[in-house]
């Protein structure tokens, strides 16, 4: 979870999607992932608007107990759900109006991908990806096979044991 928080907070959504496309994920997969990211942003915006509207009418949730806050949060779900359905409709009309057909082909040919063409996978990218995969495999190997990451095998633990306690 920490890794995903770090990843999403240090990478722009656009770069994540370009990465997906460059690695050869089908258009539909990368596009749906983009829509999910976009929807998350819309959902949070709507949530903030509803909270501001409540605060503007004098509601202060800070004074509520924890149970009260949880109960109150459930009240947000109805307007958020309604707004989400409406936004989904808007987005589906937007997709229709741009001629979107969820297929990897246009008129029998492969669907063009401008961003993938512009940001091709370079040799350096391949080396970095290979290095990260190799490093990950090495971590798995040293953890599961050699058991290098257990407390008994930790370098600091062994040094302290040896120097302070002469064990």
């Amino acid at each position, binding site marked *: 979870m920490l890794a995903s928080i770090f990843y999403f907070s240090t990478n722009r959504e656009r770069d994540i999607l370009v990465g997906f496309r460059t690695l050869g994920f089908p258009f539909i997969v990368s596009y749906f992932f983009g829509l999910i990211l976009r929807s998350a942003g819309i959902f949070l915006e709507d949530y903030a608007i509803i909270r501001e509207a409540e605060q503007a009418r004098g509601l202060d949730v800070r004074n509520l107990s924890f149970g009260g806050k949880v109960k109150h949060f459930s009240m947000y779900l109805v307007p958020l759900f309604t707004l989400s359905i409406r936004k989904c409709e808007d987005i589906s009309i937007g997709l229709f109006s741009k001629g979107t057909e969820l297929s990897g082909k246009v008129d029998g040919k492969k669907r063009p991908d*401008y961003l993938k063409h512009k940001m091709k996978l370079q040799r350096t990218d391949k080396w970095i990806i290979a290095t990260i995969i190799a490093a990950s495999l090495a971590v798995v190997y040293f953890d599961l096979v050699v058991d290098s990451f257990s407390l008994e095998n930790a370098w600091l633990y062994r040094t302290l044991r040896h120097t302070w306690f002469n064990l």
Partner: protein
Amino acid sequence: MNAIEIKDLIWRYEGRETPALKGINLEIEENQFIGVIGPNEAGKTSLVAAIKGIIPENYNGIYKGDVKLFGKLNRDSSPRELARTVGMVFADPDAQFTSMSVEEEISFGLENIGCDVEEIGKRLEWVCKLTNIEGLFEKPPYDLSGGQKQRVAIASIIAMKPKIIILDEPTSMLDPISKDMVFDLLRIMKEQLNLTVIVVEHNVEKLVELADKLILVHDGQIEKYGATETFFDDLDFISEKSIRVPGAIKFMHMVNASRNKGEHSPIQLEEIEKTVKGYLKGDE
């Protein structure tokens, strides 16, 4: 040639008692700039949505009649074919953004209609210069100002080079300066691009400066369709249909009436100014 032909179009949304469109008949020639005016709930958006094919494709309801674009029934066209012929910009720019960067948003439509990547690059460069959105390429569209958002939305449609572009209240959610920016862009579209433009708009003052013809929609029907120059000749009729007639046009009518001038009054600000200056100098 007619870009749009509508015959006996009736549309009723599911769950509504009365139709939103009540037997519309309309012909729009190609390369015209058309303004659509009318009060709220008159059927303006339903009319343009039917031209774009959003009605009946995306809504449930009862649909009768024909809408033809360049002679072809739009209900026989796929979304891709429709997108190649007609593009649409909505009132809420946020509702039409589906991508995470301006560059991706504009290239998305072009990919959908099958432009090759070299052509997409060329069109991106062209449309960004035309709409003055260079420098916004890598930004997320939803982080832009209202005016920039609407320019990006318009750019993404212009880039697809459809023969018809519909703009449904493109300035309704914008501040006055952003509104002016959008109208400047509409002027560029009219002067530089060879296409049919339909704009649904409440700002009649701005619309009369650009439109070749105006359509007055009221209660699901087309009450008036004609050249902009003569559209306001019967001011009482226009006012009866809940349209706020621009003050300058009313003023010119009053001046002409007081001088017993029978001919139609000028409606564009420049013409009005010229006429009034002429009257003040003593010209007849």
